[in-house]
């Protein structure tokens, strides 16, 4: 009887145990966003769990759960997969722990470039990069003799030409859903115009200027070339629009290219779907896009044993050459051994063109929130660009005062 049990246990656990992940105890609970690359990453780390408990929550609502769940002591999650923007609230509230000792002890395969250091301390380990860039329909552009757009001015001209040809009524798409998505488009375009969100060295807003007006006008021009329901369209919705063949030019996340180019859907559209770098705007030389990293952070309010177990499992994935080779088309991995394929063109071009990372500032979330709701009326044609920007600044100032930034 005992022999059978031992054999069974060996079968259950023996096969999944790796030589370098001999985790004996602790419990691992991960909070992550929900897209294919992150699922692959978490699955890979699960293979290394040894005899530790392993739980994961994939949710597109991760931002709403993170701060409350990590504030609890002990916190619900031992790790959170975060990005440039979502690490900020965790830092503001002091909810994540420095990883220096763990990196030294268990982070052998992790490259130095993957480490996110703040004030000399490693706070996160990045494993993939992301950005928003242009997608285009090769067949449509070729038919009409349009060159691949390099600037948003060219995107507008190309879209107008496509519309005039009668091929498509709403040739352009981007995630303009009121709220976070729309604000993100503003952030991209404003940075493309060379804007700075805050007066240097302070939390005073700095968007009500010529650059802000130019940004809004460009967003409006693009929105007029989009499906009239654009204010309700998030990344998923425009992906569907693209796959139904209603759109010929689109600004979308690099991390979604995998699902656009997979075997599902109309093969002709999939074949004609091509990727290119992000566009510039207003004669600027840096792209109107922001660079993002996704990486893991460890909760502060969790025992050292759990942190160690979690780090070992996640570090296994963050340095896994097999994972990046197998899932090469799911993301632009920052892990050693990654060979960029055709689906990584967007991010690589963005980096080459000198795109800026999303501003990792403590008060940026408040600005992002104010943008998402206050510029809607301008796009609807209900108020002037100056008034919209004035509203954004006023809404931001009130929130920043309440939060103690001003």
């Amino acid at each position, binding site marked *: 009887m005992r022999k059978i049990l031992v054999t069974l246990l060996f079968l259950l656990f023996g096969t999944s145990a790796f030589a370098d992940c001999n985790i004996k105890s602790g419990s691992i609970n991960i909070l992550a966003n929900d897209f294919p690359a992150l699922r692959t990453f978490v699955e890979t780390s699960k293979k290394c769990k040894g005899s530790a408990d392993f739980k994961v929550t994939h949710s597109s609502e991760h931002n709403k759960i993170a701060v409350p769940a990590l504030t609890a002591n002990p916190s619900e999650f031992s790790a959170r997969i975060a990005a440039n923007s979502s690490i900020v609230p965790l830092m*503001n509230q*002091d909810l994540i722990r420095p990883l220096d000792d763990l990196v030294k002890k268990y982070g052998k395969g992790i490259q130095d470039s993957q480490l996110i250091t703040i004030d000399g301390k490693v706070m996160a380990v990045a494993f993939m990069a992301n950005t928003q860039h242009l997608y285009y329909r090769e067949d449509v552009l070729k038919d009409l003799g349009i060159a691949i757009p390099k600037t948003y001015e060219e995107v507008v001209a190309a879209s107008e030409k496509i519309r005039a040809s009668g091929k498509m009524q709403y040739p352009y798409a981007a995630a303009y859903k009121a709220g976070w998505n729309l604000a993100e488009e503003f952030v991209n375009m404003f940075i493309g115009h060379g804007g700075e969100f805050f007066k240097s060295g302070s939390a005073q807003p700095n968007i009500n200027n010529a650059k802000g007006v130019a940004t809004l006008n460009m967003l409006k021009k693009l929105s007029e070339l989009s499906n009239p*329901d654009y*204010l309700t369209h998030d990344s998923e919705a425009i992906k569907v629009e693209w796959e139904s063949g209603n759109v010929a030019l689109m600004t979308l996340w690099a991390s979604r290219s995998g699902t656009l180019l997979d075997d599902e859907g109309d093969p002709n559209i999939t074949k004609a779907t091509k990727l290119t770098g992000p566009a510039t705007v207003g004669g600027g030389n840096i792209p109107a896009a922001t660079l993002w990293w996704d990486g893991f952070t460890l909760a502060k309010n969790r025992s050292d044993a759990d942190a160690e177990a979690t780090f070992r499992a996640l570090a296994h994935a963050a340095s896994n050459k097999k994972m990046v080779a197998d899932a090469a088309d799911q993301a632009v991995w920052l892990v050693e051994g990654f060979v960029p394929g055709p689906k990584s063109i967007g991010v690589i071009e963005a980096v080459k063109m000198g795109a800026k990372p999303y501003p990792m500032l403590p008060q940026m979330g408040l600005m992002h929130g104010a943008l998402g709701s206050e510029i809607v009326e301008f796009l609807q044609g209900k108020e002037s660009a100056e008034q919209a920007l004035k509203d954004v600044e006023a809404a931001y100032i*009130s929130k920043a005062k309440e*939060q*103690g930034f001003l």
Partner: protein
Amino acid sequence: MPNKTFFWFFLPTGLAMILFIGLPIISTGIQSFYAQHDQVVKEVKKCDPFGCTVSIVVDNEETSKIREAKPLGKFNGFGTYTDRNHLAVDEIKKFWNETESFGAFVDQVTNLPFYKALIFTLTYCLFVTPNVLLLGFIIALSLNAVARKIRGPLIFGTILPMIVTPLVGSLVLFWMIDSQGIIGANIQNLMNDPYLSLKSSKTLTWITIIIYGIWHHSPFAFVVFYAALQTVPQEPIEAAIIDGASRFQRIKHIVLPHIYPVVTFVALISLMDNFRVFEPIIGFSAEGSAQSLSWLIYDNLVNEEVILFGSAAATSMMTIIGIAILLAPVLIRTWKEFKTAR
């Protein structure tokens, strides 16, 4: 029931109400008077895969010291209530002095988030509540008149909108009014305007949400009215028929006065429900065109990466006050009737 019996009877409910409703409201009230401490920030070097920059972070050591000393935050009094994102007292004064016409003043005020939300919430209440009462009453009367055999299935069909979860109900309608959905595309054809979108126009979004609200809430009014109709005595109605009263006269002079207390009850409950309108805004992704007070609270709590507890608490308190003001006339009236009845 003697007062003493009533007291013991009510005690468990009363305690639960104090514990789960009263205390949280008090705590929310206290919270609304506080803001976060001034943030202590420092300049540090930040490095990520894309390079290094010098920028600011919150100084956690300093901040935790301040937080330990005063965990509630910085006392702000009515500061949150009067700031631009709520009652906007200073802004309104400024608009009053600066604008030339009353119309321009109203335009400026309705551009402020709180007033924008208040106007939508009130519009929603004012259109949905009477229509729900009317529609519910008409359905109840008609169903009361059909043959008993088919009444069961009909009643079930009628209360279906209430059974469907609000989010699901609104999502179904949301897809139907999409510019490629069955309603949206047909309206475009009908109006001969390919750019017409129910979702992008503010007015059309409001109308959609209001129609959805009426559709969703009518069954509640119907169920209560239908039950009340069963208690209407037959003798006076028969007498009225003999006297030659028309159907309309019978309803006006016998049925309505009889079920009047129930009408008040339904009006109260619908007003309260409608003032807290929230789900359809999320279901219709209508945040851009329609914001309600409840949505503002939600926005402060979850849409920002930084949670604004003070703002959310202040809006919650004002919502409670708003409901109290709306209900006051009905409540006063009920109280007076109760007194005369004694």
